[in-house]
């Protein structure tokens, strides 16, 4: 053996990563080692990826130190004091000058008022039933637009930011500029009652007196979906901010969940004995809890993951409460002549008796009816719309203290607003990605049910099989991360003793009870027309059944097996 090739061997033996490319922190523990993967390169790559992911997770946990701002709070020191006894005057006195500006009353005439904050909490849009519309920056007091529309206006919403807003007027939806210039008349949305804007999909949704739910893309102008709810006029609409599903409350007490992709509701629940008046989804738990209130005076909190009864329900004095959850999980209920605020964790823990949860704060408002409640996004402020205008009250502890300036920034300047708008347009998600579970993106697809195998043996040659089938035949298919739909059911904890079934057995169990295609065909042919193929199939099935019966009888012993005779060669099979 030549020394030259040996020397090549020696030189290439000690290869390590250069120091600048080596990871600086020690490898984290609890990292999964993919020992079941035989390919060394793939295994190294997967191990490196897993270590990198574990390190990033640790860094994200450390990043909580960077959250410098603290949430507001209201703590009683003695046992005799209660938080709900404290009035707004005391809170305003304890608050700083800047925070105390949040306590204000807007005395307006123009019918009962509804309000909406922009996503960063800096701009407020108000609309009165008689047609008074105003948008302004409430912190600096700058008025953007004020309009007297002189017709019934039922709802208002900002579009992507303060530069556009949409008003649900008597017959149609109109879109206005920041300065109040009318830009569009959306004649597809007829007699709208409520509006919602889905910011990540750029969709404007409206429900109306005709019972239609319509989605329109505000960046291209197309109508994405028009759904007939078939449940009559709808006056209650809420959005789940984490999966962009719209919750509608109907006049027969039914709450339905809609996506633009399915023509019927994804979920339908009978919630109340009368019309559903208030509806809101909790953003602090990722859309897990939904609060509904009916004309019957009952307020219910539901768990959206398993729709098995309410988490909490209680009766309020007076029917038809307006509801809203805050970013930190506080629920405000405006019913009768006052607004009540309840906080976590009591509002979210299951409680069987029908008693109201412990009250956190209450505020009376003499002007009835109370038509809307809105929390200001990053402040401890609750804005109530009523017959004589709007009132903003301070509620310590409901506002999210640390915002992310890339998502929503109350202090953004003109340049930042433009950049965010353009980036939002580039990142616009297509409406067909809206589902009840938003985490399906990037997850492994469920194993396909299509297989060419008959009783686990393949008929077609190995070279023509699809890739996953080939790996299965070779025994190299790594199915550790595939989750079967059957096993994922919520009540799957009763089957711990069952053996792991093979795929064939699972398929068989699924098919049991369901009509097979042959039976379906025969059922269709059971008309007055005699079809020779149907006749032949029936005869064949009959013969198979007869054979099975005979075989079973022979097993039982009730019948003797036919003795072999010389004339058997003449028998037709």
């Amino acid at each position, binding site marked *: 053996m030549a020394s030259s090739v040996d020397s090549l061997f020696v030189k290439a033996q000690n290869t390590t990563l250069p120091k600048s490319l080596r990871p600086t922190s020690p490898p984290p523990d609890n990292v999964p080692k993919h020992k079941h993967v035989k390919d060394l390169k793939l295994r190294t790559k997967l191990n490196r990826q897993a270590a990198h992911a574990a390190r990033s997770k640790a860094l994200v946990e450390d990043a*909580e130190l960077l959250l*410098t*701002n603290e949430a507001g709070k*209201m703590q009683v020191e003695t046992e005799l004091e209660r*938080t709900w006894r404290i009035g707004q005057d005391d809170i305003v006195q304890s608050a700083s000058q800047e925070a105390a500006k949040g306590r204000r009353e807007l005395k307006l005439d123009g019918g009962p008022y509804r309000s909406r904050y922009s996503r960063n909490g800096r701009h407020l849009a108000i609309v009165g039933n008689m047609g008074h519309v105003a948008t302004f920056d409430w912190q600096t007091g700058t008025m953007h637009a004020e309009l007297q529309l002189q017709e019934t206006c039922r709802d208002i919403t900002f579009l992507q930011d303060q530069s556009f807003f949409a008003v649900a007027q008597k017959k149609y939806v109109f879109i206005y500029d920041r300065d109040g210039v009318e830009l569009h008349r959306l004649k597809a949305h007829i007699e709208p009652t409520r509006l919602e804007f889905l910011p990540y999909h750029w969709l404007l949704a409206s429900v109306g007196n005709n019972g239609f739910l319509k989605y329109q893309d505000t960046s291209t102008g197309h109508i994405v979906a028009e759904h007939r709810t078939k449940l009559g006029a709808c006056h209650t609409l809420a959005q789940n901010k984490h999966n962009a599903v719209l919750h509608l409350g109907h006049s027969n007490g039914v709450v339905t969940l809609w996506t633009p992709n399915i023509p019927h509701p994804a979920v339908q629940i009978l919630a109340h004995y009368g019309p559903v008046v208030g509806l809101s989804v909790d953003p602090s738990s990722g859309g897990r809890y939904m609060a509904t209130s009916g004309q019957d005076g009952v307020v219910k909190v539901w768990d959206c993951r398993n729709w098995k009864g309410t988490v909490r329900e209680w009766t309020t004095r007076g029917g038809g409460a307006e509801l809203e959850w805050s970013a930190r999980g506080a629920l405000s209920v405006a019913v009768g002549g006052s607004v009540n605020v309840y906080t976590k964790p009591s509002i979210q823990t299951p409680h069987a008796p029908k008693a109201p949860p412990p009250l956190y704060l209450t505020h009376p408002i003499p002007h009835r009816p109370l038509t809307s409640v809105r929390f200001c996004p990053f402040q401890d402020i609750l804005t109530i719309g009523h017959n004589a205008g709007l009132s903003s009250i301070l509620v*310590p502890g409901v506002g999210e203290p*640390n915002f992310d300036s890339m998502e929503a920034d109350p202090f953004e300047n003109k340049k930042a607003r433009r950049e965010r708008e353009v980036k939002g347009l580039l*990142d616009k*998600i297509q409406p067909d990605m809206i589902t009840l579970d938003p985490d399906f993106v990037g997850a492994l697809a469920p194993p396909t049910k299509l297989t060419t195998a008959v009783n686990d043996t393949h008929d077609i*040659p190995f070279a023509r099989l699809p890739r996953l089938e080939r790996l299965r035949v070779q025994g190299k298919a790594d199915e550790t991360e595939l989750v079967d739909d059957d096993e994922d059911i919520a009540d799957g904890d009763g089957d711990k003793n069952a053996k792991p079934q093979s795929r064939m057995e699972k398929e068989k169990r699924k098919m049991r009870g369901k009509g097979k295609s042959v039976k379906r065909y025969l059922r269709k042919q059971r008309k007055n027309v005699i079809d020779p193929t149907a006749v032949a199939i029936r005869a064949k099935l009959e013969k198979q059944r007869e054979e099975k019966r005979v075989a079973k009888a022979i097993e039982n012993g009730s019948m003797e097996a036919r003795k072999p005779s010389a004339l058997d060669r003449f028998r037709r099979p």
Partner: protein
Amino acid sequence: MVKISVLQHAPSVHLPARPGDPTPTTRNLDPLMHPFARARERNRALNAAKMDKLFAKPFVGALEGHIDAVEVLCKKPGSLSAVASGSWDGGVILHNVSERKHIRRIQGAHKGKVSGLCFAQDDRLLSCGVDSKIKLWDASPQDDITEQRPLNEYPGKSAFNSIDHHRSDPLFATASNIVQIWDETKSAAISNLTFPTSTETITSVRFNLSETSVLGSIGSDRTFTLYDIRTGKAERRIVMQMSSNALAWSPTFPTNVLLASEDHNLYTFDVRQLKTPTHIYKGHVAAVMSCDWSPTGLEFVSGGWDRTVRIWKEGQGTRPEVYHTKRMQRVSSSIFTADARFVLTGSDDGNVRIWKAKASEKLGIITARERAAIEYRDTLKDKWKQDNEVGRIQRNRHLPKPVYQAAKLKRTMLDTRAVKEERRRKHTRAGESKPNAERKKVVITEQT
């Protein structure tokens, strides 16, 4: 008594301290603050893949000057812009690639085609031709670019096919029917290296870039041979199924060698274990005529008889980047420039073409912010390449119709052969015939 504190935001933390300062950013990495994070990231990956294809304009320019087909290209070591090309009419041109001008133009350097070029030290160029002569030329930049007289001439006994210079010593090796080592100061070869039982024509010879006394050569009898100057002998050789057309040693991994084969594939071998190739690169639909490594050792370029240039990643044996033009005919030579940004190809139509190694790269001054954005997009594409839509956009290549049809036909024929092989295997008794892995079919035998 009650402790009350109401949330407030300090404007000083969120607004710039002085006019002209950048606005401070605040981050909250709680996933609840970022709904649809994965869907948005996937959208960005999709846009990144689309932008990559939108801005893919790989052709930079053509260097003209040859009358006949370009046979061989060679880059000057230590220089970014000097490249020499030799053509079938016997002309040799030294190009300045960045200015697209000729530094030297030698018409009639050889009678017949110039079959090999290499650079010697101190601005000198060696060329060999089928007229059995090796000539040494002065390659330094001068005012008069036409050059007629060589510095030295080395006559040989038979037509030369290839030439390569030693890394540091004044030695060079040539390939004809034997591999010969020459000293620049002597007019005859100082040693002949042959394998004892070979009667072949050697088509290409290359020195190893790290272990500089080791040579590799490929021959017409489907062999790849390793030699050592110090022992003066051929060490080992392998015989393959089909002959190779070009060979290139890896610049970063000294034991890896890349062979461009007639059976449309490229093979990398580790010379310590020559029985099986380490990788097989399948993509060309006709013979691969030339190959060259990138200086990073992570990529290589191959030019084929099917009129395409393909840029491969080391370790990934399918779906390379494909460059083609209607005007470019059979690609006979391809090299990477020393900065790994450009690929030069010489083809039958007499042009040397300059292509970008990364088709959508911006050739200008890139600011730090732009570079960060480019790196982010590259990571996004890599992370989401398993997604159906993103992966499909990245994998898609436009091929000229004849190449596409040829690839389809080849795929059908190979599939039917695989199916037939399997049916044969299914119907033979167990233990009678054992299936062979693809890699083991390449090398027939190894001889020492």
